């Protein structure tokens, strides 16, 4: 859980200590792996073991800069999480990480909600670069928007 004190800005909980990442995957080995990558990059991270838990955290008021999302999860799938994200005013950049083939994921990385798609097993360096670049960009954008409001 993200426990550091947050600053309330424009009605949202704005994390002051750098980018944050939510990892949503039902594979218990993936969550610590990606968490370790995020920690190496200096980011804070939180985890969800299914889509329902991910949505609950996204709606909790905590702002995440990046959501690393599996597609095939119990309770609520990654596809449903993406559909729900379209309705949220404040949403993270989404990196889909899936074992699904190209046929199942065709068109999903539309650049609007889903910024990138990686296939499992992932290359550690590739994912690390992708999370870093995406989280930094989103965090800077969010910080500048909050500062300007």
């Amino acid at each position: 859980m993200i426990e550091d004190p947050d600053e309330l800005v424009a009605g949202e909980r704005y994390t002051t200590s750098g980018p944050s990442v939510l990892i949503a995957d039902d594979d218990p080995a993936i969550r610590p792996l990606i968490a370790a990558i995020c920690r190496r990059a200096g980011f804070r991270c939180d985890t969800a073991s299914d889509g329902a838990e991910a949505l609950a955290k996204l709606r909790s008021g905590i702002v995440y800069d990046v959501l690393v999302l599996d597609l095939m999860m119990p309770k609520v799938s990654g596809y449903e999480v993406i559909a729900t994200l379209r309705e949220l005013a404040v949403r993270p950049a989404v990196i889909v990480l899936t074992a699904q083939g190209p046929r199942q994921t065709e068109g999903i990385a539309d650049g609007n909600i889903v910024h990138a798609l990686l296939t499992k097993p992932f290359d550690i360096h590739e994912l690390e670069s992708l999370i870093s670049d995406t989280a930094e960009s989103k965090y800077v954008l969010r910080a500048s928007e909050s500062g300007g409001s």
Partner: protein
Amino acid sequence: MHDGQRSERVSGARARDVRGPAILVADDDPAILQLMNAVCRRESFRCDTARDVSEALEKLQSGETYDLLVVDVMLPKMKGDAIVAALREMSARPAVIVVTAEPPSPRLVDGSVVHAMLAKSTDLLALTALIADVAEAMFVLRTTGSDPSFT
């Protein structure tokens, strides 16, 4: 992560499994085995090593529980996807990082069993903290049933 945080997190889990996190390293490169042994000593983890596929399979099927498997898929005596097939049969699987000198064949990188890949050219020394973090987090999850705090 601070060492104090790591110690605190692991100490709670070790109340349930006093032996601590366990890593199996399957590689025929003595330098890799030496490095991983050093990581385990530093972190007080258990470390088993295998120099070929037969040895790796023997250890995986011995009943011992591993939190992390670091495996070179170009091991000697490699019989197709024997390690991946063995992992598929396991109910509680370790996190699996494949270390490879060249892109492995698709059948060796089943995304439901193998989680991540690292190029052999990578500076593994720089990744030892990441490897230790993964093993420790898997150990906490295995012994407590909950994800550790990743802050």
